[in-house]
C-alpha cells in the first residue's frame, strides 16, 4: 500500500489550500467561492485578534459554563478492570453538549463580519438548539434546516428551537436526513449571499470550516490536557470520542496530536452492523470522494452516488466525516473503531446505572468501546472519554429499545 508520509507536526494542518493531505479543499459552486474566501480571511483575522479571543473566552466562561469538569469515573473503572477512566464532561455545558463551543465562536465571527441572518443544519437537533441559543442571545434571526425524518424523531429539540425563536424548516428532498439538511442550507446560502452566515455544526464542509470548527472545539482538548496533568501529573494513554462529522473528537484530539504516547480513538456508528450495510461509518465502510465542499471518506455506491447513513443516533447519521479525520486515519495517527446501535444502548444503560449520568446516544457509541480500550491500555494506564452530550433528548429512543412507554 502507498501510505502517505508521516508529518513532523500533525497540528500544522490544513495547508494553505485548506488541505489535510489529500482531504479537505473547497468544492463549492462558484457563487459561494468569494464568500468562503471572505470567511477564511475574516476567521484568520479574528483568530489573530486577542480582543476576539478574550470576548469568546468571556462567553465560554460565563454563558457556556467552561471549563467543563474532568471527572474520574470510579465505578466504570472498577467495572471494566482496566485503565483509570476519566470523563470530559461536555454534557454539562449550556444546552447539553459540546456543540455550543463552536456556535459561540462562529456567532461572534458572524457579527464581526456584519452578517445579520444565521442559517444552520441539524441532525439530532443539538447543533440546531445550540445555534438557536446563541442567535437568541445576540438577537439574530435563525433558520435551521432539519431533515423531515429527523424532525419526527427529535420533536423535543424542534420545540426547543422554536422556543428560542428559531424557524425550523423540515427538508423533504433526498433522504430527508442530515446530509439533505446540509444541502438545503447550502442552497439557502447560495441564494442569500449578502446577509447570511452559514453556521456549520461539525468539523466538515469546505475550508475554512473544518479548521475553524476544530479550533473552536479544541478548548475541550486544551482543558483536558491541563486537567489531567493537574490530576495525574501526566498525559493519558488514550483519548476516546464518538465521531459523526467529527467535531467533538477533533476538539479533544487536536491538542494531543503531537504527543505520540497518546492514542487517539474515534468511534463511528455501526448502526445495525457493519456487515448489514446499514451503518454510518464513513472511514470503516466508505471510500474517499467529494461531498459538501470537501474531499473525505464517504458512504457511496460503486458509481459515486452518496448512500444513506443509518444509525439510531441522529447526530451520527451522516455519510461523511470531517477531512482531518480522514487524513489522521490514513497517516495512522488516529484509529477509528465502530459501535452498533445495540452496543451503544447497552453502554447508555451501563453509564446511567454505574455513574448516574445519562449520556447522549452519540456519546454512548464512544462508551461502547471504552471497556475494550481500558483493558487494552491496562491497569496502570489512563483513558479519557469525551462525554460529548447528555441523554435527556434520547430517553424516548431508549424506552422504545427497552420496549417501554414514556
Amino acid at each position, binding site marked *: 500500500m502507498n501510505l502517505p508520509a508521516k508529518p513532523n507536526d500533525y497540528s500544522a494542518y490544513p495547508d494553505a*489550500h485548506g488541505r489535510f493531505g489529500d482531504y479537505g*479543499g*473547497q*468544492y*463549492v*459552486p*462558484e*457563487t*459561494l*467561492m*468569494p*464568500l468562503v474566501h471572505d470567511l477564511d480571511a475574516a476567521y484568520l483575522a479574528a483568530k489573530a485578534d486577542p480582543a476576539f479571543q478574550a470576548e469568546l473566552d468571556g462567553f465560554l466562561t460565563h454563558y457556556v459554563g467552561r471549563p467543563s469538569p474532568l471527572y474520574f469515573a470510579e465505578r466504570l473503572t472498577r467495572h471494566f478492570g482496566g485503565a483509570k477512566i476519566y470523563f470530559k464532561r461536555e454534557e454539562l455545558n449550556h444546552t447539553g453538549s459540546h456543540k455550543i463551543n463552536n456556535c459561540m465562536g462562529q456567532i461572534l465571527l458572524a457579527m464581526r463580519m456584519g452578517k445579520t441572518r444565521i442559517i444552520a443544519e441539524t441532525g439530532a437537533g443539538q447543533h440546531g438548539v445550540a445555534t438557536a441559543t446563541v442567535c437568541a442571545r445576540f438577537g439574530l434571526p435563525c433558520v435551521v434546516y432539519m431533515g423531515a425524518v429527523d424532525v419526527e424523531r427529535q420533536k423535543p429539540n424542534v420545540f426547543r428551537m422554536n422556543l428560542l425563536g428559531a424557524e425550523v424548516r423540515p427538508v423533504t*428532498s*433526498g433522504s430527508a436526513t442530515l*446530509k*439533505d439538511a446540509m*444541502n438545503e442550507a*447550502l*442552497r439557502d446560502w*447560495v*441564494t442569500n*449571499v449578502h446577509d447570511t452566515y452559514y453556521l456549520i455544526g461539525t468539523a466538515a464542509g469546505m475550508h475554512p470550516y473544518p479548521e475553524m470548527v476544530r479550533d473552536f472545539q479544541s478548548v475541550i482538548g486544551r482543558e483536558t490536557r491541563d486537567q489531567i496533568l493537574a490530576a495525574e501529573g501526566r498525559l493519558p494513554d488514550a483519548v476516546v470520542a464518538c465521531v459523526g462529522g467529527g467535531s467533538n473528537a477533533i476538539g479533544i484530539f487536536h491538542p494531543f496530536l503531537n504527543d505520540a504516547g497518546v492514542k487517539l480513538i474515534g468511534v463511528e456508528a455501526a448502526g445495525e452492523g457493519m456487515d448489514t450495510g446499514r451503518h454510518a461509518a464513513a472511514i470503516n465502510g466508505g471510500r*474517499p*470522494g*467529494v*461531498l*459538501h*465542499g470537501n*474531499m473525505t471518506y*464517504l458512504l*457511496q455506491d*460503486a*458509481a*459515486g*452516488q*452518496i*448512500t444513506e447513513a443509518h444509525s439510531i443516533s441522529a447526530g451520527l447519521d451522516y455519510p461523511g466525516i470531517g477531512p482531518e479525520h480522514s487524513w489522521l486515519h490514513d497517516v495512522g495517527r488516529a484509529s477509528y473503531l465502530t459501535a452498533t446501535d445495540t452496543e451503544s444502548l447497552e453502554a447508555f444503560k451501563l453509564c446511567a446505572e454505574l455513574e448516574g449520568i445519562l449520556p447522549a446516544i452519540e456519546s454512548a457509541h464512544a462508551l461502547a468501546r471504552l471497556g475494550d480500550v481500558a483493558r487494552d491500555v491496562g491497569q496502570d494506564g489512563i483513558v479519557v472519554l469525551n462525554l460529548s452530550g447528555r441523554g435527556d433528548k434520547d430517553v424516548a429512543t431508549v424506552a422504545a429499545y427497552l420496549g417501554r412507554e414514556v
Partner: protein
Amino acid sequence: MTKARIDARFAALRAEGRAAFVAYVMAGDPDADTALQILKGLPAAGADIIELGFPFSDPMAEGPPIQRAAQRALARGMTLKGTLDLARAFRDGDQDTPIILMGYTNPLVTWGYDAFARDAAAAGIDGMIVVDLPPEESDPLADALDAAHLSLIRLATPTTDDRRLPVVLRRTSGFVYYVSVAGVTGVKEADARTVAPHVERVRAASQLPVAVGFGIRTPERAAAIARVADAVVVGSALVDEVAGAVDMNEDVTARVLRKVASLAKAVRFARQGLAAV
C-alpha cells in the same frame, strides 16, 4: 472534434447573427429510452447545443425541478456510464450538435479524471461543466480534459467580481456560462437588463461566447436574454415538462420537444424583433 465542435457551432451562429439555444436535459429522465428519444429530437426542435445532466444524489446548487429530475433518473438506475451510452447513441446520428456534460464532482472522482475524459471524448462529448469544482480545485480535471481535447466550461456568477474573473476564465474554453442569479437553478428569474453588463464584462475579459442560464423559463425571457448574450440556457423549465407529462400520462418526448421548439423559436428571432410569442 470536441472543442472544435463547440467553436464551429458558435461561429456558424455568429454568421447568422443570432444567439444559441442551449437545452438542458437530465440523462435518464424519466427513463433511459425516453431520454434518448428526447436527445435525438432536440436538434430538429431547435436546440443548438445540448447540456446533458448526469444525475447526482446531492445536487447542492439545484432547485427542486432538477433535484427531482435527478431523483427520477437515479430511481431508474441512471449512472455516469449510462449517460455516456446515451451520448454515444445520440452521436451516431448527429455529428454537429455539441454536447456538454453537466453535473457534480463525485461520480467523476469515482471514475478517475483521466479515464473519464478519454471515455467521454470517445462517446462524443465536447465539454464539461462541473458545478462544485471551482478553479481552485479543478486543475487535475482540466489537465485530463486538455489531454482529451474537451472543453472545461466554467461558471461566472453575480458574486464573481473583476478581481476574481481572471481566475475563473483561466483554462476555460468553448464558452463561459454566466449564472444570471445568485441562487439555485429554477427559482429566481433572470433579468436581461441586470445581466447585460455582466455579459459584456465576461465577454471582454474572455474573448469567448457567453451563455446565460439559471432562471430562464419563458420564450419572452429567453428572447430578452438572447438579445444580450451569445447563448440562452433553459433547464428547469424543460425538466418540469418531463415531470408534468409523467404526472398527466402524456407523451413525454412530444411535450418536452414542444417546449424546446417554442423557446428555440423565441431565441432564433429575438434579434429581429420577430419573436411571435
